[in-house]
Structure formats: C-alpha cells, structure tokens
C-alpha cells in the first residue's frame, strides 16, 4: 500500500542518514521515489560526498559502489531485521580501512539477524564469531571443518597480524 511504502522509505532514509557518514565522512545519501505515486514509481539514490560532484552513480569507483550498497543494506536491516543475511565476497574491492569499517557495520545488525559471509580478507576473519574452513584436499571434493583463529594464522603468512 502507498502509505506503507512511504513510511518505510522515510525510516530507511533516517537510518541511511546515520550510517552513510560513517563510511563517507561528511557524506549524505537519500533514496527517492521517481514519481509521486509510490505504486508506479522507481527508486533512485542521491549521494553527496564532500569535494565530489557525483552526477551519476557510474562515476563512483568500484569500492565506492560496494560501500554505497553496504550502507543501504545495513539501513534496510536496521529498519526491518531479516532472519539472515548472506554475503559472498562483497568486500573484494574494499581497501583496508573500509573493510574494517564494513565488519563494524555488520556488528550493528548481528543482534537481530544471522550473518554468513564468504571472504578472503584477514581483517574480516578476525572479527567474526565462527570461522568455517572449506577445503578440497581430495581433488574435486569439498570438505568442511571449523577452525580456530590461531590455527588459521599458522597456515597463512599474511594472517600473522590476526593475533590481537
């Protein structure tokens, strides 16, 4: 119904106002309907990042696009926590600082939603509750094992700094 969509949109934008500046300091993002009638309208995203003149979303860098989507996703989950959230290497294009910020945002929604994340990023691995390893020791056959952080560090050189 019309009122429901408008009400939900308002709530999401309130959260987005809070979340977006934690990723883009001084930035603003707003979801807007492309038509007065919410039933036929589309949904657009308006962004402001200080010093940047974003005329259309394609001007954003690879990492900036991923960060915008993450900010919207978190805002949606803060408005209505779905039972679970499953993310497959959404952090692949993020730099170190933004991947640390990303896992902090996930902590905001983990109270009400289960999160499953697939990643190669050590900065993310060290902040999660459970680590699941997948291997193909036998060629072509996947096996699962639960791993402790210190075991992971032993196996990979670039995880040395995982030890807190």
């Amino acid at each position, binding site marked *: 119904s019309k009122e429901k969509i408008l009400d939900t949109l308002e709530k999401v934008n309130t959260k987005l106002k809070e979340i977006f500046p934690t990723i883009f300091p001084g930035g603003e993002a707003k979801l807007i309907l492309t038509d007065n009638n919410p039933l036929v309208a589309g949904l657009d995203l308006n962004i402001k990042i200080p010093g940047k003149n974003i005329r259309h979303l394609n001007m954003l860098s690879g990492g900036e696009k*991923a960060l915008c989507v993450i900010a919207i996703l978190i805002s*949606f989950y803060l408005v209505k926590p779905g039972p679970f959230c*499953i993310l497959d290497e959404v952090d*692949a294009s993020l730099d170190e600082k933004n991947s640390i910020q990303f896992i902090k945002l996930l902590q905001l929604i983990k109270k009400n939603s*289960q999160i499953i994340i697939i990643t190669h990023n050590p900065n993310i691995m060290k902040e*999660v509750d459970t680590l699941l390893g997948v291997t193909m020791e036998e060629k*072509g056959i996947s096996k699962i094992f639960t791993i402790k952080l210190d075991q992971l560090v032993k196996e990979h050189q670039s995880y040395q700094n995982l030890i807190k």
Partner: protein
Amino acid sequence: MFIKRLEIYGFKSFPYKVNIPFSPGITAIVGPNGSGKSNILDAIRWILGEQSPKRLRVKELSDLIFAGNIQKKIDFAEVKLIINHDPPVWEKFKDFPEIIITRRFYRNGEGEFFINQKPCRLKDIQFLFLDLGVNPQSYGIIEQGEVSKFLEISPKERKIFLEDLA
C-alpha cells in the same frame, strides 16, 4: 530464528554428506579458490526455491548433482536446512523448536520437497519464507561479483527491494 546448520549431499562439489554448523551471530566461510564456498551459498538459495540454472551457475539443473570422479554413483542431490524455531515465528509450526527443510533432485529431473520430513511442494517452502521477506533474490543475499547490482539495475527493479521491506 536462524540457520542452525546445513546438510549437503551430492550437490555440486559435495559428494559425501557434510554437516555445516552456523553461529547465530556472524559466521565467515573461508578457503582456497575453487574449494566450494560459493557452492554452499548456491545450496542455500536452491533450498529457498531458486529455479534458474543460470543463477545457480549451471547449464541444466542436472549439473547440480555431483559430477566428479569417485567410485560411488551419485543419483541425487539433497540439501537440508535446519532452522532454529525457538521462539516460534510460524504459527503453523509453533510446536516445533527446530524445522528441517529438505530439497532433493534426481538425475531423471524429478524433485522432492519436505518440511519436517513431510512431503510438500516447492510453493509451500517459498510461501514459508515469503512471510519473512526472504527469497533467493532478496536484498539480503548478495552473490559473488554482484555487490554493485543494486546500483546498476533500473529504478523500477530497485523499488522491488523497498516493497520487500515494507
């Protein structure tokens, strides 16, 4: 409500039954390239009702069944989703503290679906999750390489996510 564990047998690169435990908080799945991590997400989307071969990264649905070389013949693919249902979310299943959803697919193309061991239709599973705004394409499930999709689709398609939320 959360996923307690996933059991996979004969689906993609999992010829032997595996049991995958998840935490109610944040679980990270890690491992080398090609080891089978995204196949686990495919298994979850499949049990939530995904029907498109392209979105499951196969040519035909029969490619979902393990196709590697082992002695044993694998005749079907099966995925079980074990959900914690305490406190209850679905009125219909309020007496079940745990709910097991099963999907099976045979080489001859037939599929079977079960909720708590009772045969059902795919629609029943899809309806169950629809109440919660969960479906294989919902905004909370992002496939590998698709993170920017939300920005690249049309405004009309984007609005569907807002409607899911409302």
